[in-house]
């Protein structure tokens, strides 16, 4: 009886503490996932990702994999995305870089698809992150999607290309524009501001001051996004706080047939806005992307680390092997 009561007391105590933590939304655990530093810089960053001021920042590589959740599934041709982030005077700048030897600017055929990249944030900070694919009913996400075919300064036509010209400009001849399709509006931007709360709920919203620009060079895309810390509307995160922000990435390679759900996606990782300056590396003239030379002799450090762990483990094991003798000695 006493034993049963003590068990009940233990379980009730645990439940009580858990209820208090849940109600106050106080998570005793902390995330240990990859953290991307959003570093403070002293001058306005440019939207050209190939500029030395961007390239000299040490990137964080985020692994990506094929999207296998909902049809159309597939992709995964891009294995990793390099991420850099900075902030300047209340604006966040994020640069994504990934290897792609075939830039796809034009979607002039049914089977031609654009290269693209997206950044996803939870709409609101919380103790639990939403589902990485379009969020979920009770936890929406905000997505910034950049598309190469929507970029005005990109070479949209080959040299020998031509366009049809409609003589009429009224809505009758432009039904997509009339219907409000954001991709058909005259003031189109390469970056769309989207919100979603589950599959089938993706909706374009006011871009506000969300900007972006992509550049293809040396077999890789470099896309810079920027937005003020304060959002322009609902279901968009506010930046600048001390708490880390959850963030995920997706990339499409058009020439590999990637579009819609066929893409490379990452899991959620975290971004921390810090007042420190970015860690820099020397930018080599011929970066051997994607295995560029890290700033430190990391191979040696990596081998050394595992060697230390191994020696430590072996030492503990050898020490403990003396256990039976000690035990037996004590038992004599």
């Amino acid at each position, binding site marked *: 009886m006493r034993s049963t009561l003590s068990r009940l007391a233990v379980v009730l105590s*645990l439940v009580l503490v*858990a209820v208090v933590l849940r109600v106050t939304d106080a998570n005793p*655990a902390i995330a*240990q996932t*990859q953290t991307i530093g959003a570093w403070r810089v002293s001058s306005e960053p440019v939207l050209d990702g190939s500029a030395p001021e961007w390239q000299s920042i040490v990137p964080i590589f985020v692994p*990506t*994999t094929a999207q296998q959740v909902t049809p159309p599934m597939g992709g995964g041709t891009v294995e990793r995305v390099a991420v850099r982030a900075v902030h300047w005077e209340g604006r966040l700048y994020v640069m994504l870089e990934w290897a792609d030897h075939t830039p796809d600017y034009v979607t002039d055929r049914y089977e031609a698809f654009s290269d693209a990249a997206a950044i996803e944030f939870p709409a609101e900070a919380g103790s639990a992150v939403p589902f990485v694919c379009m969020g979920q009913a*009770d936890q929406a996400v905000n997505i910034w999607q950049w598309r190469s075919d929507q970029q005005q300064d990109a070479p949209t036509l080959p040299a020998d290309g031509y366009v049809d010209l409609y003589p009429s400009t009224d809505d009758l001849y432009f039904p997509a524009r009339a219907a409000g399709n954001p991709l058909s509006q005259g003031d189109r931007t390469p970056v769309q501001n989207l919100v979603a709360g589950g599959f089938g709920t993706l909706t374009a919203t006011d871009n506000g001051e969300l900007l972006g620009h992509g550049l293809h060079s040396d077999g890789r895309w470099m896309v810079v996004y920027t937005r003020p810390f304060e959002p322009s509307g609902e279901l968009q995160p506010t930046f600048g706080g001390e708490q880390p922000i959850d963030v995920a990435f997706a990339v499409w390679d058009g020439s590999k047939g990637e579009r819609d759900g066929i893409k490379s996606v990452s899991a959620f990782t975290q971004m921390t806005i810090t007042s420190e300056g970015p860690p820099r590396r020397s930018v080599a003239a011929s970066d051997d992307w994607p295995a560029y030379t890290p700033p430190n002799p990391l191979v040696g450090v990596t081998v050394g680390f595992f060697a230390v762990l191994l020696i430590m483990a072996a030492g*503990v094991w050898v020490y403990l092997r003396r256990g039976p003798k000690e035990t037996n000695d004590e038992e004599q």
Partner: protein
Amino acid sequence: MTKSSERWLPAGLPGLLGVLALGELVLLRTGTRTLVHIPGLGRYETPIRILAEVGRFAYYLAVVSLVAVLAILAYQGIRTRTPRHVTGGVGALVFLAVAGAGRLEILAVPVVGWASVVLLVVVTATVWRGLRTLPIGFFVLGWAAAGWTVLGQGTMGGLSGRQVDTLMLTAEISLLLSAVTAPLLLKGPPPRLAILVGLGFALVGAAAFVSGSSTLTILILWNLGVPGWLPGVGYAIALGSLMTTLWSALATDQRLTAIGLMLLTAGGIGTISTYQTGLVLTAVLLFGYAIPGPGRDLTGTIAESKRADSLVVMTRPTRTPGLPKTPSPVG
């Protein structure tokens, strides 16, 4: 003369933790992410919200239980006075202190991460019993490799893309090897029924991977911490082996082994959160009790309970044949 000593381990609490962690994994980390496939999401919004809330509460309860279990394991380990369990107990205490300091922002997150890696490796060394503990060794190797991709990039000035790939692949291979070799954790060969159950799970897993109609890859990335680059068949075999081991452990009263497997599954690979790291550390500590070394049962062994629903398990020291009857150093 043998002085019968009694030591106490609330083994029911690790069991409760195992159930809660799996519940949280199934409801929160998996259920709410797969239920969204239901056509007409709006119609099912309320049940999904309820399930998500239940999962979230299971998470909070699991975190609280985890702290209690680690504290008890620390107390129990230190009390045994055997080097391996004392080391494990101190490791649990240090982890609680470090994770708490990280939560209170006394320690930086990378410091907590590095400390987690070191603690897990040291504690794994204390439970090492050769071939029988090979699956734990594989798991922790994979865990350290995946953790290194996070910690190496965050504090060491960067890793190259190929280094990241190599480490993630190492983590993935280690994870699969850990699952495939999991039956080594058992005291004997798995029963025939357990093998059939494992085969069934492997076939279902293989079919799901081959058909490509599942959420498995993204769930592997999300829940286990590896990118799912290896062929799905490998994961199917690993799933079958894991289920065979789990079924065998439950069917043959190897309760701590079963709980350890549940906690490893819920914990995943790599430094994801202090909660998941704590689950893995707890699992390794429990394996240390479940798999005694030869000739060391006089002081270090905690017999696995046959009372599966017991909150408190009374344990008695067992005597190795051939050794003299002597009072236990922990009376």
